[in-house]
């Protein structure tokens, strides 16, 4: 091909680009495909299975052949359609799926084996010998398959998400879409107009039609200018509406800077979630081809694409040109080419009454039956009047009619409907709610009809919203219907391609028919028809027609496969938006985070929270040294730990006590003001799911804590109980987790330290005993809540202040406690202390364990109802004899790891003899031994027995003595001290 006059390219600027290492030039307005064609490059890729040489087939996003890897390094983008890639200066592209070069591809040997590689061949072989599939055949197939290659580097570009809520979304900026947008825009409605192209106009840009005697591009420009001036209209070009979801939600990807060498400071793409009250689908139509023998030669393209390259991109087809069409539209290609000074050898048309639009010969009753020219078309075989004849031809345009782009109309699984008149599927009756279809997508494909249909559908849609839109003046335009003939393929014993990319031929469809893979969904899966990157946009309907011919059923009875999002492929990067890498989830920081950081703390992820794990000191070379020191400080003097992450829920109201009675398995209504009680919650199915403390600060005021992990869930469940089960109770809830900073002050010196900061308080054991709570002030008037509760088993308190004072409180406590040896401790030491004390956490309350298993059976009150109480009495739960026990390894230096399974000593180890498992494990500096907790069959009756903790993954068996889980101070004297 070469450049001719005219076109919508900017010849004042020249862009240099590379394809497979060679330098070429093009202009702004070019796509990579148009620029390659203008440079005479016909061979651009290889097919998937046979590695057949391929050229550009189309001029749009339906392209099956011209796939390239665009850019390089971390920005390499495999499988990019050259037909939609906008040319920019310095663009680099490489052909794919070939070795070593696109011109000489060793895997083209597959083509010679084609008789073996029929539809579904791989299901019938590669089974012998048995081990070879995975060792030999499959790896070879995997290497040969695939198309482009990922860079394997992280995507360096930025992405964004946006939300729009227009009255009307117009999908497609061609004749119908522009008329719809203009109608709605003038009426003052909020309009979003989205088009996948980088230029509005759609098919108008590819035609030579006049609109009211002026070039169509003039009208497009004037409409675009008017829409740009309307504040209620937003135009998105380079924006593909890829999916129709529920309730008027559409997914749209805008390629913000893909047309630039680098995004610069901008994002590369934006994902728009558009919630539209109404939608006009004006997505146009896609041309189909007519399969004949060797119809995949480079140089054979869709007739409409050939016309678009000539009209929009000023690229004339190479050499002798012919058109093969079964409809009048194909003749337009010939007429346009002739008008642009490109001679056309003939239009070959199977119809006896084929027209002639002037300037070229029409061969009526004729078909193309073959093609030559492996790397570029050189001749075609034409059968005219029953006589075959090879004629020289380097460029052949093929048109088999147009398929309305009904994909979005079918995303809610409404089936499109076959129209005998159009010989095409039109949108069916069941459209996504709020959607109407206009223009060529609705089968109203002449320019004249599309303009008027777009305007009318927009008016109707707005009227449903109570917006009256005035009729707009629309230009007169061509109104010639295509009159396609039901001529679907040229019968032949050779291979005639239906699906180019996946190498599905008419023969394959015949074989599928023979093997009874006739339902269209089976046809698709057996042959891989329509499963390539183009999703069969140019192939599927033709394949259906071939199958219908074979079965003797009509096309409507043969049916279509389902259209699924996305309409065209969408980069994963933009679907992931910016919420990736370190931003995948929000990061919650505790109030003392900055302080802890300054202390050199190591942090650990706990759900979304970052918590201090331990605080290494100079000279400590292993985390265990730090943890042992911190834990011992709590046992011997005093430690501080930020426990803000525990869920906190304020429960207020006259019937708060009664409410809590119903959500906790134990009784809370009888709790005295100023006292705290440990509480257990069950799910309604009777299984334990959370525990914490419940403090009564006033007659009608409780504050409860939940585990960190379940803070949200418990609150949700309590709101469920309040609103859905017992809305009559006078109780209100508020989540206070983020409102209060809470610090555990634990150890024998904790009372001394707290006395130094709590204002005017008597913290003596008599005045403020174990399980007391009070609203106090600290540091001279700061309101605070003080709880005498202990997770470590030592004399301990938790003190809460408004979150913004948390950091200051920690600093004050550290400062005032220096002489007492105050030591900050992290989650690791917290874990050691609680295992030493036998407290259950998520590892034990894991949603599979009961109160009885946890040794908390008595906490499920039988005197009252509570959530889960009834179901906890089911036989299966009652009969479960596994109980929480402590485990001390016989050799104190050997760790009984969490996740080991427990067996009777000497027993065979298999599923049937499994006696339980280890839930938690640590080294106890206090005892100088590893210790562990776990659930053991009849555990409460086996104290003193030596059992085996087996870890088959590590190949270890460790003997451990069954003990009480309360390793430290089992009588609980210290915490009451």
């Amino acid at each position: 091909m070469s450049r001719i006059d005219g076109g919508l390219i900017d010849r004042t600027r020249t862009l240099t680009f590379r394809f497979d290492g060679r330098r070429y030039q093009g202009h702004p307005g070019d796509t990579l495909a148009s620029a390659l064609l203008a440079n005479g490059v016909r061979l651009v890729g290889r097919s998937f299975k046979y590695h057949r040489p391929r050229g550009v087939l189309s001029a749009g996003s339906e392209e099956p052949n011209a796939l390239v890897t665009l850019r390089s390094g971390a920005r390499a983008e495999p499988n990019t359609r050259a037909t939609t890639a906008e040319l920019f200066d310095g663009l680099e592209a490489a052909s794919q799926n070939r070795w070593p070069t696109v011109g000489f591809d060793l895997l083209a040997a597959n083509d010679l084996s084609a008789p073996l590689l029929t539809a579904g061949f791989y299901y019938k072989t590669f089974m012998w010998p048995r081990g070879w599939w995975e060792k030999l055949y499959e790896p070879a197939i995997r290497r040969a398959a695939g198309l482009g290659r990922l860079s394997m580097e992280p995507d360096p570009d930025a992405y964004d998400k946006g939300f729009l809520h227009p009255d009307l979304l117009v999908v497609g900026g061609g004749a119908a879409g522009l008329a719809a947008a203009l109608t709605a825009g003038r009426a003052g409605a909020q309009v979003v107009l989205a088009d996948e192209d980088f230029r509005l106009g759609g098919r108008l840009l590819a035609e030579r039609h006049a609109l009211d005697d002026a070039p169509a591009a003039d009208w497009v420009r004037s409409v675009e200018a008017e829409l740009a001036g309307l504040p209620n209209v937003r135009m998105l070009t380079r924006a593909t509406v890829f999916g129709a979801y529920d309730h008027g939600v559409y997914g749209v990807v805008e390629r913000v800077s893909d047309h630039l060498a680098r995004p610069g400071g901008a994002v590369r793409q934006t994902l728009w979630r558009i919630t539209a009250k109404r939608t006009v689908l004006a997505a146009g139509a896609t041309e189909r081809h007519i399969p004949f023998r060797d119809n995949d030669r480079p140089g054979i393209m869709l007739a409409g694409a050939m016309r678009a390259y000539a009209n929009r991109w000023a690229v004339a087809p190479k050499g002798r040109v012919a058109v093969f069409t079964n409809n009048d539209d194909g003749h337009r290609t010939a007429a346009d080419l002739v008008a642009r000074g490109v001679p056309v050898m003939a239009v070959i048309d199977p119809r006896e009454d084929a027209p002639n639009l002037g300037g070229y010969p029409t061969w009526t009753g004729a078909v193309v039956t073959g093609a030559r020219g492996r790397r570029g078309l050189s001749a075609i075989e034409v059968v005219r009047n029953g006589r075959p004849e090879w004629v020289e031809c380097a460029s052949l345009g093929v048109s088999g009619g147009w398929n309305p782009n009904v994909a979005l109309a079918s995303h809610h699984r409404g089936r499109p409907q076959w129209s005998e008149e159009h010989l095409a599927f039109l949108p069916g009756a069941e459209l996504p709610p709020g959607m109407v279809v206009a223009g060529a997508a609705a089968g109203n494909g002449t320019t004249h009809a599309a303009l008027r249909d777009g305007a009318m559908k927009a008016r109707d849609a707005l009227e449903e919203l109570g917006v009256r839109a005035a009729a707009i003046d629309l230009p007169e335009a061509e109104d010639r219907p295509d009159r396609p003939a039901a001529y679907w393929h040229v019968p032949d014993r050779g291979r005639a391609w239906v699906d180019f990319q996946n190498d599905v031929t008419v023969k394959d469809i015949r074989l599928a028919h023979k093997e009874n893979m006739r339902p269209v969904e089976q046809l698709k899966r057996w042959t891989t028809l329509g499963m390539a990157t183009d999703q069969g946009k140019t192939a599927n309907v033709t394949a259906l027609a071939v199958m219908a011919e074979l079965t003797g059923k009509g096309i409507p009875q043969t049916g279509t496969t389902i259209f699924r999002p996305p309409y065209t492929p969408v980069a994963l990067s933009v679907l992931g938006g910016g919420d990736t890498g370190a931003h995948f989830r929000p990061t919650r920081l505790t109030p003392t985070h900055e302080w802890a950081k300054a202390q050199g703390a190591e942090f650990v992820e706990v759900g979304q929270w970052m918590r201090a794990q331990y605080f290494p000191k100079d000279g400590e070379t292993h985390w265990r040294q730090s943890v042992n020191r911190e834990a011992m400080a709590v046992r011997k003097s005093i430690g501080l730990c930020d426990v803000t992450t525990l869920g906190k829920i304020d429960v207020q109201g006259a019937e708060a006590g009664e409410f809590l009675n119903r959500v906790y398995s134990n009784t809370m209504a009888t709790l005295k003001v100023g006292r705290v009680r440990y509480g257990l919650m069950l799910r309604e199915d009777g299984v334990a799911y959370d525990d914490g403390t419940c403090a009564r600060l006033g007659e009608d005021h409780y504050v409860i804590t939940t585990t960190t992990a379940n803070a949200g869930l418990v609150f949700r469940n309590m709101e469920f109980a309040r609103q859905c089960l017992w809305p009559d109770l006078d109780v209100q809830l508020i989540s206070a987790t983020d409102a209060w900073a809470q610090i555990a002050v634990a150890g024998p010196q904790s009372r001394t330290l707290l006395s130094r900061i709590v204002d005017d308080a008597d913290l003596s054991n008599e005045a403020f005993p174990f399980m007391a709570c009070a609203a106090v002030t600290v540091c001279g008037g700061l309101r605070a809540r003080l709880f005498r509760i202990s997770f470590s088993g030592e004399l301990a308190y938790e003190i809460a202040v408004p979150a913004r004072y948390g950091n200051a409180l920690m600093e004050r406590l550290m400062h005032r406690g220096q002489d007492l040896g105050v030591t900050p401790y992290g989650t690791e030491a917290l874990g050691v202390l609680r295992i030493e004390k036998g407290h259950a956490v998520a590892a034990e309350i894991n949603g599979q364990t009961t109160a009885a298993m946890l040794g908390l059976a008595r906490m499920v009150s039988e005197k009252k109802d509570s959530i889960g109480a009834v179901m906890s009495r089911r036989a299966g739960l009652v009969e479960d004899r596994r109980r929480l026990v402590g485990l001390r390894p016989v050799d104190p230096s050997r760790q009984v790891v969490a996740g080991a399974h427990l067996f009777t000593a000497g027993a065979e180890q298999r599923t049937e003899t499994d006696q339980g498992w280890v839930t938690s494990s640590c080294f106890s500096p206090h005892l100088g031994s590893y210790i562990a907790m776990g659930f053991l069959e009849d555990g409460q009756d086996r104290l003193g027995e030596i059992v085996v903790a087996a870890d088959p993954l590590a190949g270890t068996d460790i003997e451990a003595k069954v003990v009480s889980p309360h390793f430290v101070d089992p009588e609980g004297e210290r915490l009451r001290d």
Partner: protein
Amino acid sequence: MLIPHPLLGPRDAQEFTYLGDARLLERPDPAAENAEARFCDYVYLRDNPAGVHRELWFHEHGDRSWLVVTRDTVTHEILGAELAADVKGAGA
């Protein structure tokens, strides 16, 4: 999806957490003779209709209302939404 919140108007379903069949409002009487069997039905068995379904959604990232939403499980069309507390209060 959009949920027509009775107080707040249409809200993106992403703001909500889904629970399931609104019959979970009808917690059995724990004192009934066959309470355990009735609780088993309540907790485990579902009509699971293909069609109109009354179901519970929690406006977790919103006003913390529990809603009873009437929705078609085949088309996803939403036919109405009420505050669960109102439904319960009305004796449903």
